[in-house]
């Protein structure tokens, strides 16, 4: 009896691809997968990150400035925590201009295929109203009319904690703006590129790594949850879309599938 109950729980809860995070009694295939607001397709955990509060400058933006989610992989082992990524980013920059905190806005922990750890979870990174550091600091993208207005109204400002925040004119160039201003970084912890001299964390040719269905689903759920809250977020891109990099490895091949999964939850991404 106990064994039967355990099997049912495992099948209906642990290995369900439709609703990994849902409790078994919440699953009902006859109901649409689009719940009423507030939507929680995935539980997003919070971490009280250490910040370079004294020395680092950073930029603020209205959350509505963001229209694109950019997918990354961390390149580090899949077992690394968001706190570890934050710690690494606190070490970056120069003594005069250090990084403020973790550069990505969302962190997805998910095991490689066949692995048991880490625990699958999504964690909040840098708050959405702070400009991230992930797409490339010298990459500029076009602005739509709303974004141009927010820029003209001086809504994107930079400064230090406790100090004055002012407009930094170098953020804009001929009607385009730094890609970090209109995007957020969503990082999957792990390394999805092949092993090489410049990528010693990479996978072996004999055992390539691909994002599991669970990983794809977590990205789709998180993205959809964000779009429901911020309807201007209409696009999912990947790091190498902006400049030459191997990031996010094989995850790039699954962006289309992730968008299809997001559609299942009632979200459209281009």
């Amino acid at each position, binding site marked *: 009896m106990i064994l039967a109950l355990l099997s049912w729980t495992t099948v209906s809860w642990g290995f369900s691809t439709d609703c990994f995070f849902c409790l078994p009694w919440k699953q009902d295939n006859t109901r649409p997968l689009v719940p009423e607001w507030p939507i929680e397709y995935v539980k997003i955990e919070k971490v009280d990150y250490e910040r*370079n509060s004294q020395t680092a400058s950073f930029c603020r933006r209205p959350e509505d400035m963001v229209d694109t989610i950019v997918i*990354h*992989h*961390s*390149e*580090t*082992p899949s*077992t690394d925590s968001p706190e570890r990524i934050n*710690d*690494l980013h*606190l*070490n*970056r*920059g*120069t*003594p005069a201009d*250090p990084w403020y905190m973790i*550069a*990505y806005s969302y962190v997805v922990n998910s095991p490689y295929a066949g692995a048991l750890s880490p625990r699958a979870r999504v964690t909040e990174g840098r708050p959405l109203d702070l400009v991230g*550091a*992930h*797409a*490339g*600091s010298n990459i500029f993208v076009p602005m739509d009319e709303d974004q141009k207005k927010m820029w003209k109204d001086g809504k994107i400002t930079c400064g230090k904690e406790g100090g004055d925040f002012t407009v930094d004119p170098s953020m804009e160039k001929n009607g385009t703006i730094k890609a970090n201003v209109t995007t957020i*970084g969503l*990082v999957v912890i792990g390394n999805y590129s092949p*092993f*090489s*001299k*410049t*990528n*010693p*964390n*990479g996978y*072996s*040719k*004999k055992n390539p790594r691909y994002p599991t269905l669970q990983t794809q689903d977590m990205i789709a759920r998180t993205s959809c949850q964000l779009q429901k809250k911020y309807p201007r977020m209409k696009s999912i891109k990947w*790091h190498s879309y902006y*400049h*030459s*990099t191997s*990031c996010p490895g094989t995850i790039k091949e699954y962006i289309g599938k992730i968008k299809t999964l997001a559609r299942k939850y009632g979200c459209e991404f281009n």
Partner: protein
Amino acid sequence: MRIQLITIILLFSFTAVVHGSDDKSMKELFMKYDQVMDNKKIELIDEVFSQKFIKASGGKEELISKIKELPHSSNKSKPLAPDLTWRKGLKNEMYFAKVKEPSVNKSKKDAHETEFMVIKEDGKLKIDGTLGDGN
């Protein structure tokens, strides 16, 4: 005044000596790394990688098998040590070493950098992996 000047000079000299010594160690580490990754002196693997990195790679045997999978026949693998730049991390006892990775089509615009994380293990510099190149 003179004492202050001497103190500043001593401080600068000390920093220069420490940096110089670290610089030498860093260059040596990446020369060994080149030898390990080119499958010329794979026995140096413990001197090159941190124990945490080896463990996260699935163990020494797994890491060696990955290295052996790499194409070495041409012997033309570009050494990383000569083009290395590095700096100390801002908070922890950690170093970031950058190498330029040439693009396939050899265009400068397409080239990107790889950032290695280096830590001190038992007083020796060891590679602890790489970090995503976003900024």
